[in-house]
């Protein structure tokens, strides 16, 4: 550290001569660059984007191919299933129950204007099973599990633990990535199924206790208009979301650079990219299932 009393003069001194010595070449290069700078920036961004897409595709292909090739690590898989499935239950349960409750309240307000209050139960169950259950659970799990994966794998990368795995003749893709991918694909549908039930129950609570529906007819309405496809499409979404969450968590963690800051960046990127991919793929799967 420089002496605090001398630092003001230092900064003035060092700042002043910088632009002074050779203004001419600087200006000239700026001018020629200026014309191309804009294009160069766009080019660089696009190249970086495709580089990332390429890397991610290679990573995905490698991860998926390792899923079907032994050796497998059942102990790791079980651990991840407990971590992703069991420990996410409270988060998913809370999210869906309040979503179901608010959905009942809001749709009641809307339908009352058309005297169609009877549709509340149907709207709640269809919205929860088709959309809100998988999407909200996916986003919550992306924050909870995706971030944890990126942080854990990223820390293992920057502390050379992934290199250590390789030197111990253990493929890190098989040991770290595959169990997380498979566990997330299996557990997310389970979570969403539980979340569906809890969300519908949330709607039921509000419907019966606050909006004075008859309990039996609320349940009747719920069942009558629910189709298998509603639930199945939600579960397919959940599996895809699980895959995306684990993939982004592992990919970002696996490619972490630098120390704590690098891991922080990976965690942020994992959560943001997983969330965005969930919303995009949600639209595409919906289109696939329900577009007429």
């Amino acid at each position, binding site marked *: 550290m420089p002496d605090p009393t001398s630092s003001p003069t230092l900064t003035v001194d060092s700042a002043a001569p910088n632009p002074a010595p050779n203004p001419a070449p600087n200006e000239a290069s700026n001018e020629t660059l200026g014309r191309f700078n804009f294009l160069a920036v766009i080019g660089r961004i696009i190249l970086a984007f495709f580089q990332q897409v390429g890397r991610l595709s290679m990573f995905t292909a490698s991860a998926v191919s390792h899923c079907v090739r032994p050796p497998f690590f059942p102990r790791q898989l079980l651990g991840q299933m407990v971590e992703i499935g069991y420990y996410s239950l409270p988060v998913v349960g809370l999210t869906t129950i309040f979503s179901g409750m608010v959905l009942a309240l809001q749709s009641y307000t809307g339908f009352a204007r058309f005297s169609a209050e009877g549709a509340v139960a149907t709207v709640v169950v269809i919205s929860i099973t088709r959309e809100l259950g998988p999407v909200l659970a996916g986003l919550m799990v992306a924050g909870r599990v995706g971030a944890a994966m990126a942080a854990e794998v990223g820390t293992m990368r920057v502390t050379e633990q992934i290199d250590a795995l390789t030197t111990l003749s253990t*493929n890190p893709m098989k040991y770290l990535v595959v169990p997380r991918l498979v566990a997330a694909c299996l557990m997310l549908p389970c979570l969403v199924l539980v979340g569906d039930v809890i969300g519908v129950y949330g709607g039921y609570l509000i419907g019966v206790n606050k909006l004075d529906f008859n309990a039996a007819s609320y349940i009747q309405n719920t069942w009558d208009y629910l189709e298998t496809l509603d639930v199945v499409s939600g579960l397919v979404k959940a599996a895809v979301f699980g895959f995306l969450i684990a993939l982004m968590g592992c990919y970002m963690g696996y490619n972490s650079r630098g120390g704590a800051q690098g891991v922080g960046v990976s965690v942020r990127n994992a959560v943001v990219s997983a969330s965005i991919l969930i919303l995009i793929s949600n639209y595409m799967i919906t289109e696939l299932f329900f577009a007429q």
Partner: protein
Amino acid sequence: MSASPPKIALSGVKKRFGRKVVLDGIDLEVAPRESVVIIGGSGTGKSVTLKCVLGLLKPDAGSIKVDGEEVVGLGDRARERINTKFGMLFQSAALFDSLTVWENVAFGLIQGHKMARRKAREKAIEKLAQVGLGADVADLSPSELSGGMQKRVGLARAIADDPEIIFFDEPTTGLDPIMADVINDLIVKCVKEVGATALSITHDIASARKIGDRIAMLYHGKLIWVGPAATVLDSGNPYVDQFVHGRADGPIQMELRG
């Protein structure tokens, strides 16, 4: 060297990152049961050399042979097979913090050699004893250990499956001088007991002289000096002289910007 074929042979190994040439043609042979130490300043490519041999990085050119078998460009399976010959002590120990100490030591035995967990635990405790740690640390988590103890556990893990070749990446960095010497002694003892070939990298001259039979100096991507460990202090090479005596003035200029 001797008539027996070299355990590890590097010839013309080159590696660059972008425009920066890190390794510019490395030639080095390590005989069976010999211990070679590569010394050199920070950023001269010591770690890169090691990572190339381990297969963590792929050299741009040149050949690396282990037991006469070319290992550059091997597939996953073949690489795993080659890596079973290796043990490695990382600079930061790189212990798996999600596992206990004994599971760390036994990792290669359980995953690589498919040993039963109970038997692997016994072997792990035996190896921990070999590096001077009691059975009471076996069930601790690595984060509960001091730096010196973590290095010992790392060493125990490196020698757990009696590897033919052990790599040491800066084994004494970050340790106090006494602990560093203890680790050096342990390395010499363990390498002898296991009967392994050793390749180490360090910038600690005391450590290099203690654990190495031969020392090689890496500078600007080339090995500029290779000789017996005993002669490193009076090698007659101005670069080596400057490095081993730690002088700021001399032919080596510190690159502050890479």
